[in-house]
């Protein structure tokens, strides 16, 4: 029930911000903040419920924390089915947190048409929260597509130099691939209709359909393509670097922090449980894709000259680990995937926020034009150092815990994939530290316009939240993994083919 409250309050906040927009930018910011605050207040009971569930510690807590189902289109058994389990609570929490971060970063960066910007921002958040909590496939698809529009607008209206190309590419990639998902969803529902006589779109009913065989494989492939495009996996990742370089900083934070996670969540929730046999058969190929994304994206990241583009490729490399973790499909790698998702959300949000701050100060993103920033902006550089280290997976921070658990889990299923992916850990410092070397160390290049003032309090506060988040995730991942324990075990049981036990 609270989930609908969260979505509605976010939308209301957005509309209010838009209404107040023309009057004063400050009013629209406060309206947006109010919307987000109400959403967080509604989120807390859900969190408390989740924590109390894990209190039982034995992981036997109830899987589904809150479930609500309202009839929508009776002709096809489509229902407004919102259900939240441990995994969804964590991801919604991450969305709200990054909502605050992008709001804070939009405080100084977005000047024109603020009302409309906060409208788009909050609607993206609402769409993403919807994706994480919708368990009726039709409803999931609706949220999956609806969250695209505000993001598209953010890139188009407030983006940088050639934002139209980037927005167009972003929209077409995701929309075209989700058409494939729509097709496979419909065929799946049709199979369920033939096998069980009732037509329904709910995830719970569709779990029972027997999807072994050639058709099942094609359906799984349809879903897989849609999620890998969003993830993004290697063959279909080209939209991310362009979208990130051209999006405004709050836009990049949203895009990297949350929108990529919907792809990972989709893989987690829909591939294995609905198509156990097909997914098992597809695992080797998926793992090779994952490994290639890790290594190829890392190499590309190293070669980039634009900071945001470099960080974008770094995100692709981190998301390569997620594909690996999911297709290993055992308890350790799945929990690792969740930790990796949250950690990547925080660290890439931090990296993009700082890239934005650098651009605000030096009006350039090109690494060869930057240099010797450390003496001018020591605090900003120290924070950038922290996030760069988090990105390369230093133990004690969230990314390492995620990557380590994924690799540990993947090693059980296919050692070769894990070993080759572990090379990614060697390449990570190569691209992460190149930013530090080119932008922060060394002497400032001759024409560098050094009018940069160090961090302003609200910027530090924004980055501090992320730093604390990463450290907590690094030292106490238990806080997260306990929450998702029941949900993950239940998911795993559904994901294993009929034959194999738990």
């Amino acid at each position: 029930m609270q989930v609908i409250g969260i979505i509605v309050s976010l939308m209301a906040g957005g509309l209010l911000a838009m209404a107040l927009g023309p009057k004063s930018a400050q009013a629209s910011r406060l309206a947006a903040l109010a919307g987000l605050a109400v959403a967080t207040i509604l989120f807390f009971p859900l969190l408390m419920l989740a924590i109390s569930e894990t209190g039982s510690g034995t992981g036997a807590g109830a899987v589904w924390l809150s479930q609500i189902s309202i009839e929508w289109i009776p002709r096809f058994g489509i229902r407004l089915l919102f259900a939240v389990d441990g995994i969804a609570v964590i991801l919604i929490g991450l969305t709200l947190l990054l909502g605050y971060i992008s709001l804070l970063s939009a405080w100084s960066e977005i000047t024109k048409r603020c009302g409309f910007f906060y409208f788009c921002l909050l609607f993206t958040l609402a769409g993403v929260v919807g994706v994480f909590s919708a368990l009726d496939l039709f409803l999931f698809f609706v949220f999956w597509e609806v969250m695209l529009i505000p993001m598209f607008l953010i890139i188009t209206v407030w983006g940088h130099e050639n934002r139209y190309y980037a927005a167009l590419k972003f929209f077409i990639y995701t929309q075209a691939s989700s058409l494939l998902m729509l097709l496979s969803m419909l065929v799946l529902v049709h199979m369920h209709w033939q096998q069980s006589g009732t037509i329904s779109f709910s995830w719970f009913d569709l779990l029972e359909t027997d999807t072994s065989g050639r058709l099942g494989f094609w359906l799984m492939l349809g879903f897989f393509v849609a999620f890998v495009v969003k993830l993004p996996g290697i063959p279909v990742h080209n939209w991310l670097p362009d979208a990130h370089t051209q999006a405004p900083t709050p836009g990049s934070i949203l895009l990297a922090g949350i929108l990529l996670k919907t792809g990972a969540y989709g893989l987690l929730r829909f591939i294995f449980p609905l198509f156990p046999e097909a997914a098992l058969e597809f695992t080797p190929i998926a793992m090779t894709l994952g490994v290639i994304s890790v290594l190829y994206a890392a190499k590309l990241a190293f070669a980039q000259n634009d900071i945001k583009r470099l960080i974008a490729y770094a995100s692709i490399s981190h998301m390569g680990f997620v594909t690996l973790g999911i297709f290993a499909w055992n308890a350790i790698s799945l929990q690792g995937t969740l930790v990796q998702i949250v950690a990547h959300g925080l660290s890439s949000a931090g990296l993009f926020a700082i890239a934005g701050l650098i651009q605000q100060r030096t009006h350039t993103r090109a690494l060869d034009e930057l240099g010797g920033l450390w003496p001018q902006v020591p605090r900003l550089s120290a924070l950038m150092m922290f996030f760069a280290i988090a990105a390369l997976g230093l133990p004690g921070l969230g990314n390492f815990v995620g990557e380590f658990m994924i690799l540990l889990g993947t090693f059980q299923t296919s050692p070769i994939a894990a070993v080759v992916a572990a090379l990614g850990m060697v390449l990570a410092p190569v691209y992460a530290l190149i930013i530090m070397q080119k932008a922060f160390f060394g002497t400032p290049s001759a024409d560098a316009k050094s009018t940069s003032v160090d961090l302003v309090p609200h910027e530090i506060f924004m980055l501090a939240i992320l730093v604390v988040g990463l450290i907590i995730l690094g030292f106490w991942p238990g806080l997260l993994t306990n929450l998702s324990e029941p949900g993950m075990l239940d998911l795993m049981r559904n994901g294993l083919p009929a034959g194999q036990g738990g």
Partner: protein
Amino acid sequence: MNLLWLIPTLPFLGFTILVLSSGRMSRERARIVGVGSVALAFLATIYIATQYYAAAAHGLDHGAGFTVSLWPWITAGSLNLNFSLYLDGLSLSMLFVITGVGALIHLYASGYMWDDPDYTRFFTYMNLFVAAMLMLVLADNLVLMFLGWEGVGLCSFLLIGFWYKDPKNGYAARKAFVVTRAGDTAFAIGLFLLFRELGSLEIQEILHLAPENFEMGGNMPTLISALLLGGAVGKSAQIPLQTWLPDAMAGPTPVSALIHAATMVTAGVYLIARCHPVFLLSPIAMTMVASIGLITLLVAGFTALNQWDIKRVLAYSTMSQIGYMFLALGVEAWDSSIFHLMTHAIFKALLFLTAGSIILAMHHEQDIRKMGGLRKQLPVPFWCFLIGSACLIALPPTSGFWSKEPILLAAWEADPIFWYGAVFGAFLTAVYTTRLMLLVFFGTPEGGIPKTHEPKGWQLHPPLIILAGLSLVAGLFNLPAADVLPHAHEHHPPLWVEITGILLPVVGIFIGWQVFLKGRWQALRMESPAFDGLRKFLASGWGFDWLYDILLVKPFMALAKANRNDIVDLVPKAVVVASSQCYYFFSRGQNGQLRFYVATMAAAAIMIISLALFT
């Protein structure tokens, strides 16, 4: 005993205070926090040690460790690691080395770095380093050790690249980080293999489970030990992954003393000592460890002979001394290798710090060709350097002798070839140490004895003197590590072996004296053009740098430059071109001619009717 968690938290606390102050703290307060935290950690270690001995005294069976479990760290499925510290003889002795030598080096550094603008930043990194090293040593499970392992690597990166103005330092720092990270990846893969085979990553559990699950000499223990060895080799700068240590000298000298002599580089030795039951299960791994030690020992020895930078000579000598420790581990002289680790930490720190004073006195001049005859102007550094060199050469009364001798004897016991190599290494050490001594303190460089003014300050001399005293006396301590590690069986090699072991260094000193001070047998100095190729080869660390450059770095850079914007981008571009070509092709058909439209309509009609009729 349950105050054990205090030891790593004190330096970490120092680190957090310095970070949060972020530049607003004055130098004095920064110094107190920086040095104080490590000193307090040392006191805590002493307190813990007294409790440890007290427990050992009334009947706690020897070698039994004491664990303090703080909170559940990573729990998922069958993996549940918790954040717990483990103390036993081995880790206690390591604690002594880290906090003891660390505190002295911090004290020295507070004077040495006094006029450096980023004073607080320096101590922030140093405290973080000590905290990470303590975490590494006290970790109860291998993943926590990995946390310390990588934390140490990070701090070495930060400290090597401390003077970031000069891009070369940045490059050296990144090189160190990436090379050690390669080793760490091997270590991580070893962990995965261990987890898959034994189902647990707790060190104590592994040490019990390993003998039961693996048979002696099987390929699983060999593979695991090889991987762990990979990690150790990366961190301790042994043969395959040693190219980063000489470049690491770009950092300030106290950093080189603390990290690249006393503590970090010994992490590999500690790892192998800690996991010795696994290594014992595969003789092949043991011989690998020993041979790596031997080869590094010799390669480093030869290279040190041809170095002109004072810190690089000491770096290569560290590399060769750690070679000795690996050799000791390889020939199952476990406790003597840890003992050598302790003594080496002391006298190598002493040598580095004195070198620091000399460099400071010579206005940051590190090239020993420009130095000479400094013994009068710098008395304290001269005597300390002399004692340090004596220990390095392992002359009888010094601690160096007490720790190196058993290694040689154990080497003979295991395999005479190891002994011959080790002894020749000792001879080389004697030669290059004497060379260093003479070139810096005796004789006169061409431009006359340079004007130096010795840096004053109460923080500089006391640590040197304490370290000098310790390096003389350290031979007598018996480390608690002995009761954890298996006892080396008594060596009783033939008499001539012992005598050559002792005499050869003296011969080395004599030759060094003759060649470098008396100027005889100039050919030996290999400066004539005939030896040019050989000298350049030896000076560059036997060409490993060149090799890795060709094998790895160049192809990666070329590949990166080749497709800066990745080729997969061509696919969407191709789709765009194809569809616009189709557009142009069909739009030619739409030419606005009415009669053409009717014609197409008629043609289509005929097609459909015929299709209907004839199919």
